[in-house]
């Protein structure tokens, strides 16, 4: 497989805080990668840098051979990298369907700038919106204002929004946080199926190691801004430093979820 995304020597400092340190990583086209690590380990900072929300202090990011280090979220989205958010970022005063229509409208408006999705036309965006709602099991919320929807539903819509632009890479930031433990696999099954239909490279942040090992080909373990382990799930999860720094705090995280 060929590398679709390549980050080299990424560093990010906020004053004295080091949020990312010497990150070198290549992501193969079509792979499914889990990002693990405690809070503040640098997972979201990594996503923020790749998707253009933060500019790295040094280092380069290449996508399909092209240097995207200095581009903003808008251009990076248009090139085919999109993301969902830890806290869903939606248009709260609009309904689920309207959220998707806004997103699809952008794709039509900016069609010449988007790397993919040239086939979308004004006439069929309503049909595409309904189809997307169905694929993410959101049809019954289509006319509900998303500001009042439960968190789990908002997370799904947030992912659906990211998929509207037909990205080649999608980052999912904690897709199952706020979802009850027994629902996590149900949600992940559905999301993964919906995403597989679009043949997209997936990187997702997850605290639940059962989920990570079940759905990924590869895991990147973050600790204090570095990638301390990178490889097949069983290898990474059995790595000594990962057990010590990352998995070690998993029971606490699990308890927190039950408490929710």
């Amino acid at each position, binding site marked *: 497989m060929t590398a679709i995304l390549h980050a080299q020597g990424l560093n990010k400092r906020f004053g004295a805080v080091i949020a990312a340190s010497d990150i070198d990583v290549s992501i193969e086209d079509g792979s499914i990668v889990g990002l693990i690590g405690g809070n503040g380990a640098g997972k979201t900072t990594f996503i923020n840098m790749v998707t253009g929300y933060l500019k790295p202090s040094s280092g380069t990011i290449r996508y399909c051979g092209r240097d995207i280090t200095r581009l903003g979220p808008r251009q990076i989205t248009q090139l085919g990298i999109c993301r969902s958010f830890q806290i869903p970022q939606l248009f*709260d005063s609009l309904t689920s369907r309207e959220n998707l229509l806004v997103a699809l409208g952008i794709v039509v408006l900016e069609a010449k700038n988007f790397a993919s999705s040239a086939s979308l036309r004004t006439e069929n965006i309503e049909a595409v919106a309904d189809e997307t709602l169905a694929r993410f099991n959101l049809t019954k919320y289509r006319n509900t204002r998303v500001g009042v929807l439960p968190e789990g539903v908002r997370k799904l819509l947030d992912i659906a929004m990211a998929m509207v632009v037909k990205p080649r890479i999608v980052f999912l930031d904690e897709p199952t946080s706020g979802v009850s433990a027994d629902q996590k696999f149900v949600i992940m099954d559905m999301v993964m199926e919906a995403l597989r239909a679009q043949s997209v490279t997936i990187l997702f942040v997850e605290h639940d190691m059962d989920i990570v090992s079940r759905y990924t080909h590869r895991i990147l373990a973050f600790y204090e801004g570095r990638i301390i382990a990178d490889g097949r799930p069983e290898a990474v999860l059995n790595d000594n430093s990962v057990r010590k720094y990352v998995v070690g705090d998993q029971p606490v995280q699990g308890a927190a979820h039950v408490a929710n």
Partner: protein
Amino acid sequence: MTAADRTLPALSLALQVFLIGGWFLPDWAQSLLILAFGKGLVVLGLLLLIRTGLVSFGQGLYYCLGAYAAVSASKILAFPDLMSDALAMPLFGGVVAGVLGLVLGFLLARYRAIFFAMLSLAFSMILYGLLIKMSVLGSSDGFNIDYRTLAGIKLPDGMKLYALYALSTLLVFIATACLHRYLRSHLGRLAPAVRDNELRVEYMGSSVRYVVHVNYIIAAVLAGVGGGLVALSIGHIDPDLAYWTTSGEFVFVAVLGGTGNVAAPVLASLLFEWIKSAAYQYAPYTWQMVLGITLLLVIMFLPAGLWSIFQRRAREA
């Protein structure tokens, strides 16, 4: 959805009613309606800005500019024939306002909330400060202004007022209908999206600044045309058109009407001008107080404006 879909037929019905009904109205009522329509256009622009999440305390800038552009063109530039035309003057005002909106928009598109409100206020006060001391533009006394033709056709004296009335009715119809279409276009739909979540708009591959800039220009053009119409109706312009209280009044009317429908600003403007003309006669010293209390009541009990009463009715029916 169904209620909103009736907007265009309702607007064209209203156009016919106003065009025909206006003919039978006394002069003062026609003048009042022109005034309300002209200011309604400015408020229509504010509706678009508010839907984008921005409140401008400086629309008086474009309102005043639109009015002055028309007059200065005839007085200073050498287009006396073109510039005594009731159609050409407001349109020219709209163009000049639009050009300034395009320029200032590059700046203002970077600002939000209080800072947007304050910077737009500062710009309108700059124009006020300029005009009040510029003798070539009439200083604080301003100018008188008149029109003789409509779209090149010479107007007989008896027809002048109705011609302007019909023109303003038509312009309001065109503006509301176009804005209604615009709000349902891909670009127009982005207005509430920008208000709700700018980050997501950028992450969907669109430019927040571009959306704000376009909507800002549209609001400027509407205010410029509105200013031109009001100038023709009153027959006089002065720097107070740019004073901040004028802009405050537009915000008031926008909040009063709400942003639920493009008809709301125009109806609110009609109501406002009607009450104002009555109150000037009967309660000159308590009129603003009534306004203030009304504004408080609307904010507290009808945060979506008077239009939400219609919407509630429509839903219940």
